């Protein structure tokens, strides 16, 4: 089995979180360094995973296997393919920058950072699981840290509502998926939860058609599929900055990733049967999300709805069930994750200083925080799919993929590009340029070095992938090819 790099990566944050929780009260000065070290280690490990993943060999690598409950077919089974690695790297990035951006939290820091670490473990675990039960295990681990973090550190007026709404919706989604997963277990000839075995289980088409919606929809709710997306804007806006970054940047990807792994890969016939419906809903996501974003008055809500729109593109890519679509979807999962983390971090920086997110009351921030402005502009460009950045690299294959299947979707979705451009440019102009309102003069300061590092790292990834897609494409391809085999064979 070799060095259990996946387990180590997953559990470092848990360990760090426990240490912070148990000892943080007495030793306040240890809290942030421990969190930073843990998250840097995780990031480093994920990058090492990326570098050591063998593209020629493809398939699932870094496998770890320990039987847990053999009678029920449950095992501690970890492994990643290309798409999984991309997601792990994304998580590492977002957690790392999240810690940096949250450095100055004053209120109960030991709990804050420890819950953040627990969330990280949960997410890393889901991406690495090759056992359905284990996947749910890790998934549900995140429920309470999410809720508590929103409710304790979120924005005062909306945190109770936003936190409860988000948690309940996500719980409902995961429970729906659980029903489907149990059905899969039930129907599998070996009565197992093991994903690799289940991929070859040969479920009957009828069974797949019935249960696919449960699994896919359940997980897609976590990804923000219309019409069960309304938790996302409310929840993300209510959450504190680092949590918004994690929620929108990574958790939503957990949802669609699981939808892919469990829905599409285990029940391919079901996927083919329901693909049209998914396309319809996803297209609504894309267009509706963009239009609603345009009319928002709250800065953070614009970003929140923008996420809904972009996740729609991922779902479109999935639903085309072909090479281009899946490739684009995988790339978009990464690109959007980084982009939205960047957006939310900057929104947080603005809010920390101005204590408002009302677009009409902001202005002229470029003079005070130029780095944040540039970062936001880069994020905005990625969001509109500007060529040269990772957003374009992700969106082009998605469009090409859907052309082959449902050209009308491509034509409709493309509208969102212009709408996105409109609201991004308007927000940028209003918030960052123009005149600085009187009350902020002389009172707000630039962002800290750590903030700048966070912005820099995130922007760098988006630019580099945009210019040299060859860095990430072969990785995602390995996963895509495997999925195509499953789709073609079944």
């Amino acid at each position, binding site marked *: 089995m070799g060095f259990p790099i996946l387990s180590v990566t997953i559990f470092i944050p848990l360990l760090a979180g426990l240490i912070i929780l148990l000892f943080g009260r007495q030793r306040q000065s240890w809290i942030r360094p421990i969190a930073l070290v843990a998250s840097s280690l995780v990031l480093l490990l994920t990058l090492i995973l990326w570098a050591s993943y063998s593209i020629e060999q493809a398939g699932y690598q870094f496998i770890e296997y320990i039987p847990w409950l053999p009678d029920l077919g449950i095992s501690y089974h970890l492994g990643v393919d290309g798409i999984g690695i991309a997601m792990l790297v994304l998580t590492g990035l977002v957690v790392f920058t999240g810690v940096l951006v949250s450095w100055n939290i004053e209120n109960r820091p030991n709990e804050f950072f420890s819950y953040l670490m627990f969330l990280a473990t949960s997410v890393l675990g889901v991406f690495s699981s090759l056992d359905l039960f284990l996947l749910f295990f890790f998934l549900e681990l995140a429920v309470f840290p999410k809720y508590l973090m929103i409710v304790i550190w979120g924005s005062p007026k909306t945190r109770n509502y936003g936190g409860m709404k988000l948690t309940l919706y996500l719980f409902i989604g995961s429970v729906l998926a659980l029903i489907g997963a149990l059905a899969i277990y039930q129907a599998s000839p070996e009565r197992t939860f093991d994903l690799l075995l289940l991929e070859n289980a040969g479920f009957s088409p009828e069974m797949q058609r019935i249960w696919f919606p449960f699994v896919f929809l359940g997980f897609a709710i976590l990804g923000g599929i219309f019409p069960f997306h309304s938790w996302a804007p409310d929840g993300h806006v209510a959450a504190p900055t680092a949590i918004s970054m994690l929620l929108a940047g990574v958790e939503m990807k957990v949802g669609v990733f699981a939808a892919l792994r469990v829905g599409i890969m285990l029940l391919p016939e079901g996927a083919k049967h329901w693909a049209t419906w998914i396309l319809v809903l996803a297209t609504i996501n894309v267009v509706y999300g963009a239009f609603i974003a345009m009319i928002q008055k709250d800065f953070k809500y614009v970003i929140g709805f923008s996420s809904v729109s972009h996740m729609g593109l991922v779902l479109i890519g999935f639903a085309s069930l072909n090479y*281009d679509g899946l*490739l684009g979807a995988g790339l978009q999962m990464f690109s959007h994750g980084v982009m939205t983390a960047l957006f939310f971090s900057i929104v947080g920086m603005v809010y920390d200083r101005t204590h408002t997110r009302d677009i009409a009351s902001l202005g002229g921030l470029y003079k005070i925080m130029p780095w944040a402005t540039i970062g936001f502009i880069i994020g905005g*460009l990625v969001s*509109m799919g*500007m*060529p*040269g950045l990772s957003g*374009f*690299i992700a969106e*082009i*294959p998605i*469009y*090409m993929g859907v*052309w*082959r*299947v*449902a*050209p009308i979707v*491509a*034509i409709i979705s*493309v*509208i969102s*590009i*212009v709408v996105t*451009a*409109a609201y991004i*440019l*308007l927000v940028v*102009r209003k918030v960052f*340029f123009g005149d600085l309102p009187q009350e902020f003069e002389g009172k707000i300061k630039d962002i800290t070095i750590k903030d700048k590092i966070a912005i820099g790292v995130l922007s760098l990834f988006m630019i580099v992938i945009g210019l*040299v*897609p*060859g860095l990430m*494409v072969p990785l995602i*391809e390995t996963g895509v090819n495997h999925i195509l085999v499953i789709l073609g064979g079944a």
Partner: protein
Amino acid sequence: MENNLLFYILILPTLAAILVVLLPTTSKKIIRWTAFGASLIPFLLSILLWFQFDRTQPGFQFEVQIPWFTAIGSSFHFGIDGISLPMVLLSTILTPLAILASYNIKDQVKAYMALFLFLETGVLGVFISLDLLVFFLFWEIGLIPMYFLINQWGGAKRNYAALKFILITMAGSLGLLLSIQIVGLTIGSFDMDKIYELWPGLSEANFQKVIPLGLSLSAVKTIAFWAFVLAFAIKVPVWPVHTWLPDAHTEAPTAGSMILAGVLLKLGAYGFIRFVIPLFPVEANRYAGALAALATAAIIFGALAAFAQKDLKRLVAYSSINHMGFVVLGIAAAAYAWQSTDQGIITSATIALNGSILQMFNHGLTSAGMFFLVGVVYDRTHTRQLDELGGLWAILPRYGAIFVFTAMAALGLPGLNGFVSEFLVVRGAWHIFPLATALSMIGLFLTGVYILKAIAGVLHGPRNDLWIAIPEINTREVWVIAPLMVLMLWIGVWPASMLNLINHAVNFFF
């Protein structure tokens, strides 16, 4: 070195921009001079390119191909031929001049210079791309620096103008994007070599297999044709999708207008020549007449609108529409003749297209010059209203002479560059679209009218005492306009230097 020359020309401005960004903010002088100096290098390299280019060879030279997004069949494929070489030259000439013209910008100089340099890479990329997706990449990228240039350093209505500019252009590009995707999907690659080779012969069956649109291939081609046309037409701009131009040109800072009118508009025309005609010959032929009609409308309405303006800069802006109309007329003629067998038509079309391309180059020079001169006056008087200016000849004699010279070139005075290109277009288009051409000549007449009005408004007439003490045109400003004037004269008197190159390329075209 030789083979990578194009790549260097492309990438140097970006590197220069990054260098500028890293310079300390405080020393504006260093920033300006660094930017200017750095922008001269691509210019020198493109001169080198000019001399090394073998005009007798068909096809593209100095090709560079770097793998980019191999998964979908797109690569950084660059190359140059006789049609794009003048454009590259134009871009690399105008950028240093524009930078030099911007020395009086005081606000956030670093960002300004960096944006200009990024913009240069953007436009160069469009002209030298031999890959559809990369073409689109640079097409879109160029929008962003221009947006910010207008938005940050522009005039009073800059917010509105910048937003209108970018949104209308992007909206137009949507259809372009979709059509490019269709083409790329059906061919399996975005590389122009493959596309030129396979696209004409694409069978209905092959197409339907790939894209289940439910429409026939010819219907799709027509739609794609119009999508391409729309996107490029917005850029040129062709009447009636020109509405963004007056605001954008007027509100942009002086140098911004120079590049906008001088180079950006040519992107659209270039797109017509490089992509629309070769990819959609049947449709181009079918609708050439419509295009010619629109061109004529641009010529006439542009001139009339220019005449009606009270704001000098806006007048010049409308003049762009007027001049670009000729470009489109020539393109329309070429479109008509693309697959014709009639030698006479081909000859005429060749002449017309020659004229178009030359007009692109010329207009770049003259409009940049005109905008610059408007800027010179504005810097001193802070007004662009014709009724407030006037009688400046006596106060600024040198400026006056320069102004008249440039205006004459814009008007199409024989002996200067404008005449040659407009003549060629008219001569060539006459055979193919006599009615349109006839009407266009009325437009020519009107051109004279508004140019003279401009001159009169600025230089002649009663002197406004406010302006008695304004300084004469200074050395730096002269340095900006002088190269343009030299070129205007050069091409006017010895057009063959440029035409030779263009002619060969156009001949290969047909």
